[in-house]
């Protein structure tokens, strides 16, 4: 008996392959992850009194102009401003208070857990302006965290394990409040 002719199996599987190539997508989605506050916090309208030195008010106007504590600021300079504000290396009395805390893996160190970045965006401002502002803030935090990770653990923040990342996040927590 002659063997079954399987020459066209290749063609059939090529068809299937092409079908899958066309209907599926391999695009990986990149983005800036954010966590929203729970709705309870919003309804209770808890008035937390924040000391002036602990707050950084960012206002984004309708034309995309950024005001930082009432003074105009370029988005490019915002990252540096955030770093200075959150870290407060020289214990400036005009910058946020630091508190001494026992942090796992790092021992007693200065923790910036009092600062608040308050964001107020005009509803006519463009999404791009808002995104670039958020991006600059995240970049500032990431720079600080990378510096700390490099000096403490000898590797960038992304390469640290979960325990080390938690410790670093405790020193520089992201405290952002949006209206």
């Amino acid at each position: 008996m002659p063997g079954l002719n399987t020459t066209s199996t290749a063609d059939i599987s090529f068809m299937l392959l092409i079908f899958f190539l066309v209907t599926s997508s391999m695009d990986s989605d990149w983005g800036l992850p954010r966590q929203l506050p729970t709705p309870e916090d919003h309804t209770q309208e808890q008035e937390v009194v924040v000391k002036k030195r602990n707050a950084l008010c960012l206002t984004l106007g309708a034309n995309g102009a950024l005001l930082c504590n009432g003074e105009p600021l370029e988005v490019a300079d915002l990252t540096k401003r955030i770093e200075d504000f959150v870290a407060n290396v020289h214990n400036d009395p005009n910058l946020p208070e630091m508190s001494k805390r026992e942090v796992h893996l790092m021992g007693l160190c200065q923790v910036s857990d009092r600062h608040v970045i308050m964001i107020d965006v005009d509803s006519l401002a463009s999404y791009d302006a808002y995104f670039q502002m958020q991006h600059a803030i995240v970049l500032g935090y990431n720079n600080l965290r990378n510096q700390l990770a490099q000096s403490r653990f000898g590797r960038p923040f992304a390469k640290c394990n979960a325990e080390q990342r938690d410790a670093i996040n405790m020193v520089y927590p992201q405290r952002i409040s949006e209206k």
Partner: protein
Amino acid sequence: MKRGVFRRHHSRELPGLNTAALPDLIFTVLFFFMIVTHMRDVDPQVRYQVPQGTELQKLNHKSSVSYIYIGRVTGAPVDSFYIQLNNKLATVDDIKAYVEQERSQMSSEDQPRMTVSIKADRDVPYGIISEVKQALQQSFALKINYSASKK
């Protein structure tokens, strides 16, 4: 005489390439593609150009991600923006139902890490984004992601 016999056995015709393993190869490639890709389930009806950044993170668990598209619609005025959920245009009020529906379709281990990725055009006014965020907050979809492209 001996020489002649030898010649007769030597065939001058080249044997055809054996393609028996070709289907197996193609099937392997096919399975590879079936595993690494996911089916395109939404047809974007709005046009959008996401912002650019460098400090971006990759969205990992694809099965726990839902998408909200905000952008322009062809034919409509340039400064009017529309929200697309699934395959149809929607309003902010539909987001709550959409989130509920997406959540109910997820497996129980995906539900806690449900992420909503906002794919919005650069020029969308922040008012729309703000309304979307409030709707998401009300429906307890608290993990969001501002979709962007690498600079």
